[in-house]
């Protein structure tokens, strides 16, 4: 079983009221160093079998057509979750 992760963020030029509310709450809890917050969405799409290039292509199409609205959002990542984790571990020299 493979899993594709899709990240969707509000477009930079669109005001993100939720992120703004979170940014307002952080200093009250002692996290004063964060000057801005933007809140997006993460989708995890499961498939039977491995994540092939075809699967990634289909996930990218679904991300553009359904998971995001191009008027207000950008798809910022479509990736194989396992390969992504392996790459992160490798880059930290832990693999």
């Amino acid at each position, binding site marked *: 079983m493979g899993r594709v992760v899709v990240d969707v963020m*509000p477009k930079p030029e*669109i*005001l993100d*009221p*939720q992120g703004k*509310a979170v940014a307002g709450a952080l200093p009250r809890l002692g996290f004063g160093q964060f000057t801005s917050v933007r809140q997006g969405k993460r989708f995890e799409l499961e498939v039977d079998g491995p994540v092939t290039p075809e699967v990634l292509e289909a996930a990218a199409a679904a991300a553009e057509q*359904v*998971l995001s*609205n191009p*008027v*207000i959002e950008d798809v910022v990542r479509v990736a194989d979750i396992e390969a992504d984790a392996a790459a992160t571990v490798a880059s930290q020299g832990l693999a």
Partner: protein
Amino acid sequence: MTRIGVVTFPGTLDDRDAARAVRLAGGEPVALWHADADLKDVDAVVLPGGFSYGDYLRAGAISRFAPVMGEVVEAAGKGLPVLGICNGFQVLTEAHLLPGSMIKNESLHFLCREQVLTVENSDTAWTREFERGEDITIPLKNQDGQYVADERTLDELEGEGRVVFRYQGGNPNGSRRDIAGITNAAGNVVGLMPHPEHAVEPGFGPDGAQGPRSGTDGLRFFTSVLRALVG
């Protein structure tokens, strides 16, 4: 009698009020079901307000893929009058029948109030019983009501006279250029965030010139389309 379809999606709230508004205006309301790709030969369609599919993903996003919407999109392209109210407006933008989109109100609060609107286009199928420049009062109640679109789209809407309603007396939700409702190029598809179907009968509407709850400005949306259809 002129037949006006009212679509019910899972989570629609205002379908009964919309059907009642159609009846009070002199039309025959016809219930349409989201899962049936069948418009039952209606002469116009209303997409009412509510929280279809719980507003999951984005408001109106999942409804757009309902079987009935394929029929609505096709018929709208051929000139069928379509009115999207609140969540119905969100469905129309997700279905690309109208440009732009709605995001959360600037205040992040759910708003429920009587809202004054200025009618800017009285040539659409749903507004011909209004005067251009007239102020009307109907309820506004939503969480995701902030209309957004890029500057080019907004300029286009303004240039082509497709802004149908603008908020009057202060912008309640941060909508670009105070836009409360818009139409397509042909003028048969109209979407707005406030609710005309809640201001159709004396005693149950917003406060009006005749006293408390006497406002019936919403009724003219429905009499407009009946007149448009009769010719």
